[in-house]
């Protein structure tokens, strides 16, 4: 019996050795992957008990910061300007995670245990945080929301030569403060009410939601003319109010059955759908598709924010048996979809001699000791077209402001290039009269040495007038933004 008792003892040693091995695996080998795993709430709670870096505008206004708190988490995230910057900063919630820059640059923002500089610090954990300086201009951001007012819509303003995002607005938006509350109930209630709101305040329309770009897409079609078939620029299309489409008995009508025609400068200035539809059919699907992809369609723009959506232009094969769709795609309808960010990038590409710079919000990261530890270097995203094409398109867009649909945004002494867009989303049902449209404008200024490229979309919504247009709804916002950016009175 003694032998068997000894044997059982050895057996126990063996099975406990297995436990010890597994513990080593969990606590040493897999330790870091387990503690960084998503859904590890202990790590999250720990993060909420340490200070967190500030997020600042380019001119030093605080968009997000932490303050000491009496709650169980020791620190609390506050957003001094309420909802003004929520589409940029995102939220920082214990329960619902993070979004926006809070998510993107978490590794810099989160507190790190400071390297002790004295003996006493060895025993007290002190944290150092890095601050994030963005490219956002507080003036332009405020202007964007003021100009939007109660309209549902999105505004994206870029610096065309660097890709820096100067303003990004999505209306209606939300206040990130209750989501950062130490009270779980406050957090849950805010989250519920934001999600129950049919206006979707948590949705960042500027980068995540694509709408039919309408006639603003004609910038791309015009660019395609010079890149693939420059003879089309000199073709004179006779004035008509509608054209017959190939392979079908359907017709394509101009906006409000207007009659238009002529050469390219006139076609773009008055945004002649019948003219551009014929241009699109003559360019062919592969040329138009190649041009759209050169401008960044069908790719997610490399912006440093989570949730950016790709804009879409249908594949070449889609048009081979369906030429009417090519006519619609050439005028930014049919299956074309674009985000405000994408259209701002199209404008910025034309403004910047055909080169689209990667859009970015990060300017630099500053350590706790006020030294810059990381500085953003502008990067090229796409070479959309040649400088000569870009200059020709820019001049044609100047014509849109001088004597075309965007005349309303003209500012004395400033050369502005722009293109309006009014996507009649009910077009396929031939009822393009009633006021249901997505209203756009893309612009940049001043031509030659542009400081701002901007895209505004005011999608269809209740409360718009009958027959709304991009000039009517997006125009005033564009004008206000350009005036604010260049420091002139609108």
């Amino acid at each position, binding site marked *: 019996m003694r032998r068997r008792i000894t044997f059982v003892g050895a057996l126990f040693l063996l099975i406990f050795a297995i436990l010890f091995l597994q513990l080593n695996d*969990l606590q040493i080998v897999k330790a870091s992957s387990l503690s960084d795993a998503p859904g590890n709430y202990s790590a999250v709670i720990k993060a909420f008990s340490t200070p967190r870096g500030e997020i600042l505008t380019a001119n030093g206004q605080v968009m997000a910061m932490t303050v000491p708190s009496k709650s169980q988490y020791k620190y609390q995230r506050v957003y001094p300007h309420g909802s003004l910057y929520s589409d940029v900063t995102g939220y920082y919630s214990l329960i619902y995670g993070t979004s926006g820059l809070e998510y993107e640059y978490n590794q810099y923002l989160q507190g790190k245990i400071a390297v002790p500089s004295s003996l006493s610090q060895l025993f007290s954990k002190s944290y150092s945080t890095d601050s994030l300086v963005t490219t956002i201009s507080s003036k332009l951001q405020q202007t964007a929301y003021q100009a939007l007012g109660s309209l549902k819509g999105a505004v994206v303003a870029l610096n065309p030569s660097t890709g820096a995002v100067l303003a990004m607005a999505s209306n209606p938006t939300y206040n990130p403060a209750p989501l950062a509350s130490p009270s779980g109930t406050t957090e849950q209630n805010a989250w519920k009410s934001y999600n129950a709101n049919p206006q979707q305040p948590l949705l960042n329309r500027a980068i995540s939601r694509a709408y039919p770009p309408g006639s603003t897409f004609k910038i791309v079609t015009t660019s395609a003319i010079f890149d693939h078939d420059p003879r089309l620029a000199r073709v004179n299309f006779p004035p008509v109010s509608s054209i017959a489409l190939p392979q079908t008995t359907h017709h394509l009508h101009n906006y409000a059955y207007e009659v238009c025609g002529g050469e390219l400068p006139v076609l773009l200035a008055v945004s002649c759908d019948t003219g551009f539809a014929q241009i699109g059919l003559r360019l062919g699907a592969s040329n138009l598709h190649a041009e759209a992809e050169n401008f960044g369609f069908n790719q997610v723009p490399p912006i440093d924010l989570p949730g950016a959506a790709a804009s879409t232009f249908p594949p070449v094969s889609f048009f081979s048996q369906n030429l009417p769709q090519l006519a619609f795609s050439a005028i930014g309808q049919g299956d074309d979809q674009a985000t405000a960010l994408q259209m701002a990038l199209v404008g910025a590409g034309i403004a910047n001699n055909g080169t689209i710079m990667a859009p970015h919000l990060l300017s630099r990261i500053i350590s706790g000791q006020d030294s810059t530890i990381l500085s953003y270097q502008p990067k090229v995203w796409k070479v959309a077209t040649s400088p000569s094409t870009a200059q020709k398109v820019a001049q044609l867009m100047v014509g849109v402001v001088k004597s075309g649909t965007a005349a309303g945004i003209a500012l004395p002494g400033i050369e502005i290039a722009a293109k309006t867009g009014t996507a009649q989303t009910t077009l396929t049902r031939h009822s393009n009269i009633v006021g249901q449209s997505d209203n756009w404008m893309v612009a940049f200024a001043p031509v030659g040495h542009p400081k701002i490229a901007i895209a505004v979309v005011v999608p269809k919504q209740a409360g718009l007038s009958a027959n709304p247009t991009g000039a009517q709804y997006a125009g005033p916002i564009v004008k206000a933004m350009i005036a604010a950016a260049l420091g002139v009175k609108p």
Partner: protein
Amino acid sequence: MATTEQVRIRTRGYERRRRELELLIVADIVTIFAWVLGFYGLHPNGHIDFLNPWLTIVVLVPLGAHVANRHLAADADAILLPLATLLNGLGYVMIGVLDPTQAHLQALWTLISVFAYVVCIFFVRNPDSLDRYRYLLAILGIGLLFSPMLPGIGENIGGERLWVHLGSLSFQPVEVSKLLLAIFLTSLLVEKRDLLARLRGGGLRRFGPIALTFGLALAIMAVEKDVGFALLIFVTFVLVMWIGTGNRIYLLFGAVTFVLGLVVGGAVLPQVHQRISVWLDPWKHAATTGYQLIQAQYAFGIGGLSGTGLGLSHPTVPVATSDFIFAAFGQELGLLGTSAIIISFLLLIGAGLRVALRAHGEFSSLLAMTMTIILALQTFFILAGVIRVLPLTGMTLPFLAYGGSSLLTNYILLAILMRISHRSNQFNDLREGTTG
């Protein structure tokens, strides 16, 4: 013939009790130190109150058990009580970090359990008396086992009908019942030992006892839905049968019936199947049944080598004070802490094995072995479950985890081991004394 006075001098009781007191003081210092660390971890600027009544209970009560040992079991093993005190104290500190209210209750249960220990040491002067009253113990055990089924006092928690409520006190009678049934089966085995060992060839009688245990385990599983207890009692008794008889057929037969039980259990009880699938891939059930296990894995990962420090993290493992307390230790004390705990348990089991080896008389030896196996398997199964070596079986970590019934049972188990140890040491010392 030695007089009573001479017996006292010849046995090494005084030496053993002095060693016990020294080790108890060490265990108490560790507990107080851990408590202070935990306190400052939770309240960095707080004012410490050393006259905390609950801490005082946890620290002083084992000294009461020591005094009882001096008078009633002076020759018993010196390291059993200090190890239990250390684990009990560390458990109290961790429960206090996680949930102060439960810690107060745990302190009260410590008081009750140590009192039960003293009562047990006092009344069970001779381990053989347990042999004599085995049927009484068996009836009591079965009665306790089925008490949660009684309407009015029984309660169903988490699909397992394990709890009895008397006023505000809740109690898991299974815990005590497993001890009583183990004593009964051990006693039965010793009586039929020769018969069982000698039996050759077929015959149903030979499989009688194992069939009885197996049937009991299955019945418990089916009625109370407590897989853990059924597994524990079954594996314990198969091992004890083999140790007692030396007949390997019992190991083989135990393995076969174990697989059979697993199949039957898996078919009858949905949670058996569920626990196995969660064990195989908890991430597939991350939001539901696998949540606990995944959070436990995270806790161990966060802890790493040296842990976050007591009171300095916020363990989010559900039921962290009871089933998953080891994960909380893994998080706050790291691998160093969990290793120390595993070593403490191994020492405790080793001490139990030593009692079994030295025990005077077959029943005492086998009973000590039964107690040690219960302690070892319980510890192993819950640890293996929490760190995902085996599926979870829902046992409690002896002495460390929150839970009055478990604490009480393990102190009674300790008292039985102490009693056996006292008898055998006294006997051995005397024999050495007379021969030497």
